[in-house]
């Protein structure tokens, strides 16, 4: 018999610290499958966020850098600018990317920084125990919106793909989900495309992954998947928000010396 499915090589063979049913693990795996398939582990440098995936450096077998909360895009910029031949990605949660790191996120995109951002949208702060995230849905109960997120008091969610798509430097923005096998396959395809974009120097690529946090949602893992499907996908529609085939830097433009 032949093995048809097993752990990708670039995903280090250790147990993770993630909660049972947390979809961080699925995203880790498909990201590593892409790295394996493209054969780029030795040329990839990953940047972890502060959030539940802070210790992703113990899981990804490529070189890894742990960034300060929200600053992964800046760290990645420092890496990519000085190592333009390397593949650089960040892996960030929604608090990291869309709250404290908003400026870094917007600017890495508008610069058309030739990196890949994997953005885990689970509508909550996982690591710190379940506070409101910028992506928390209206009405959602969290530790800091104990009566449900009220837009009047706590504002509206940020729709990251929609927002970043207005920026010229964004080459590719797609929102995917990991709630089902077909969606996981689509998610992997999106990640692959983002890395291929980087290879082709097309500019900034982001893949937003709708994920679960069963623990802080207070739901059993399968119920969490159901919430993702029933509540998150309608609010955060899946799909390609931007895809600039020719890349964001047409040869003619720019005032380079």
């Amino acid at each position, binding site marked *: 018999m032949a093995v048809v499915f097993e752990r990708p090589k670039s995903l280090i063979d250790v147990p993770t610290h993630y909660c049972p049913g947390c979809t961080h693990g699925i995203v880790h795996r498909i990201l590593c499958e892409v790295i394996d398939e493209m054969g780029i*582990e*030795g*040329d*990839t*440098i990953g*940047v972890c966020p502060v959030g539940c995936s*802070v*210790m992703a*450096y*113990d899981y*990804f*077998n*490529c*070189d*890894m*850098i*742990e*960034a*300060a909360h929200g*600053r992964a895009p*800046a*760290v*990645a*910029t*420092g*890496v990519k*600018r*000085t*190592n333009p031949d*390397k593949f650089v990605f960040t892996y960030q949660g929604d608090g990291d990317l869309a709250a404290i790191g908003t*400026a*870094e996120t*917007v*600017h890495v995109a508008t610069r058309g920084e030739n990196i890949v951002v994997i953005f885990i949208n689970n509508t909550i702060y996982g690591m710190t125990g379940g506070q409101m995230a910028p992506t928390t849905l209206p009405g959602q109960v969290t530790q800091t919106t104990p009566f449900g997120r009220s837009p009047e008091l706590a504002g509206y969610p940020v729709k990251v793909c929609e927002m970043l798509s207005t920026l010229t430097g964004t080459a590719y923005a797609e929102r995917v989900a990991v709630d089902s096998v077909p969606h996981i396959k689509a998610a992997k395809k999106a990640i692959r495309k983002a890395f291929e974009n980087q290879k082709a120097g097309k500019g900034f690529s982001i893949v937003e992954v709708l994920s679960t946090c069963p623990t802080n949602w207070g739901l059993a893992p399968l119920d969490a998947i159901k919430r993702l499907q029933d509540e998150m996908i309608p609010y955060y529609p899946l799909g390609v928000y931007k895809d600039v085939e020719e890349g964001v830097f047409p040869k003619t433009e720019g005032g380079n*010396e």
Partner: protein
Amino acid sequence: MERNLMKGNEALAEAAIRAGCKCFFGYPITPQTELAAYMAKRMHKAGGVFLQAESEIAAINMVLGAASTGVRAMTSSSSPGISLKSEGVSYIAGSDLPAVIINVERGGPGLGGIQPSQADYWQATKALGHGDFQLLVYAPASVQEMVDYVVKAFDRADKYRMPAMILADGLLGQMMEPVTFPEINPNAYDKSGWAANGHKMQREHHIINSLYLKPDELENSILDRYKRYEIIKETETEAELYLTEDCDILVCAFGATARVAKSAVNDARAQGIKAGLFRPKTLWPFPVKEINEAAKNAKKLLSVEMSMGQMIEDIKLAINCSKPVEFYGRTGGVIPTPAEVLGEIKRMGGAL
């Protein structure tokens, strides 16, 4: 060697490029803007990276990223911008990364003013961010020393894998003086043992990180770092001693203020008062041996600072409070004059 007339800020930039700095990330702020402007003009030609970041925070974290891959990286700012970098500096220290940070100080607190100040002394030497750590802090006093200490800062940062700061001020940054650039052959430090620049499937993956969830591991990482700090305290202190051998009154001052103090010391000598000058060139580590040598015959010390008095504590601790240490300071961008300092020296001399 050719004498160039250059602003301190420009000299810092040129020296960094010559010292093998491969990338500069910064955000505009007075009074250090010429540094970035110079980099914008020259860095790409020198094969390096100049990028104006969206903020000081982004800049310091870009430095962290570049430094993680083993590249010589630098950022610069002035007081409020340095505060914003403090989290990042703490991360750089906690990740054992080399990097050079320039602070061309201005008056604070808050938005303050844009004139020279030295009121970030404590921030630089004790607490540029949270947690137990130190940076190397160099205090040049001339445009030439701006050059010399940038070169040294890059070297020592690499050598000890830690951040190094040039603590200058608006006066040094803005003034022009003749400067020469010595032949610089930057030491090459082997970073292949830790740099995260792609393992090419030929080694274990490298992790650059400041997180240690087990307290004893975090403690050990800190203890290791403090062992290096001890070596640095032994070997890296630098100071200028001027007319200290027989001095009754030892004036202590660093950076631009030391120039004013030196004028005052000369004026005092001209009036027959035995004044001397102790000028620390490293603020951390503070030159403890050197100040004790300088103060050995002094009856009193006078700390002159462009602040409300910060270095004075290090002076007292360094001499174990063995002699009176007085203070004269101007702050908020006011530059003390030689006449004012002379007045203090005379006042103290009269009381001898």
